[in-house]
C-alpha cells in the first residue's frame, strides 16, 4: 500500500491509502493519522477511493484515527469508499460511525 498525505489551504489533511489496507499497512495508516493529530491537524479526510481491500486491522486504524481526531477537537471523515470497503463497513455496522462522504472536497461541509 502507498499512503499519500497532503494538507489543503483550509487546514484539512487528506490521506489517500492506495492498494490493500491489511494488517501490515494498517500500522502505517495508524501512525500517519496519529502523527497528523499530534502535529495539529485534527480535521482529516481519508480518501478510500483507491483502497482495494480493507480488513479489521484497517478498520481499527480508521477508528483509532477517528477517536484521536475527536479528542483533539476535530474529526475524521471517510470519502469515496470502494465496494470492498463498503462491504466491510456494512458487515461491521460501522457505516454509521464511518459515514461515507461522496467527495473529498465536500467531506467536511455537513
Amino acid at each position, binding site marked *: 500500500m502507498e499512503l499519500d498525505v497532503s494538507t489543503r489551504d483550509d487546514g484539512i489533511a487528506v490521506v489517500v491509502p492506495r492498494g490493500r489496507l491489511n494488517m501490515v499497512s494498517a500500522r502505517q495508516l495508524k501512525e500517519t493519522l496519529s502523527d497528523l493529530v499530534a502535529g495539529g491537524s485534527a480535521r482529516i479526510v481519508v480518501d478510500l477511493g483507491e483502497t482495494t481491500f480493507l480488513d479489521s486491522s484497517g478498520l481499527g486504524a480508521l477508528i483509532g484515527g477517528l477517536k484521536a481526531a475527536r479528542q483533539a477537537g476535530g474529526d475524521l471523515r471517510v470519502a469515496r469508499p470502494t465496494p470492498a470497503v463498503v*462491504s466491510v463497513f456494512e458487515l461491521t455496522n460501522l457505516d454509521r460511525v464511518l459515514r461515507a462522504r461522496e467527495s473529498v472536497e465536500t467531506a467536511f461541509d455537513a
Partner: protein
Amino acid sequence: MPESAAGRGGEAGRPAVLDELAAAPHRLVLSAAADPEVMDLVHSMLEHLFAHHPQVTDPIRMKFEMSVIEILGNIVEHAYAHDSALPAVDPSEARRFEIQLLATDREVVATLSDNGMPVSLDLGDLSMPDELAESGRGLALAASALDTLWFERVEGRNHWCLACNLG
C-alpha cells in the same frame, strides 16, 4: 452467522468439502512462515484463483478474501505473540502455516492450518465489539461474511475451514 459455525469443531461438524479438497487436482497450496509479509502472497493466490473462476462473483470475492485474510492475520498474530515472548526462536521451530484454496461450481473454499498456540474460542458466540473499539472484530467479521467457518485443533495443529456458497 453461518450455521456450521456453531461448534468448536470435531468430526461431527466436519465440512464434507474437506474430502473433496484433498483430492482436487486444481487446488492451490502454499506452505510458508507465518509472518506478516506473506499476506501479499496470499492476496496474489486469491487473485489467481478468481481469475480462473469467473463463477465467483465480485461480492463473494470481497467477502471471501477478507475472511481468509482475517483468519491468516489471526494465525500470524498468535504466532508472533508467542514467539516474541521467547528469548530466541530456533528457525526450525518457527511458526508455519499451510493454506489450500479451491473453487467449485458450488462454493469457494479455503483451509488453513498452523502449528501455533492453541486457539481458545467459541465460534457460536462471536459478536461485534463496541463500535469505537479498535480491535476484536476479525473473527466476527469473517463469521458474518462466510457460509461456513469451522475450526478444530488436532495433534498440535489448528485447522480452519472457510467457505462461501455460490449462487
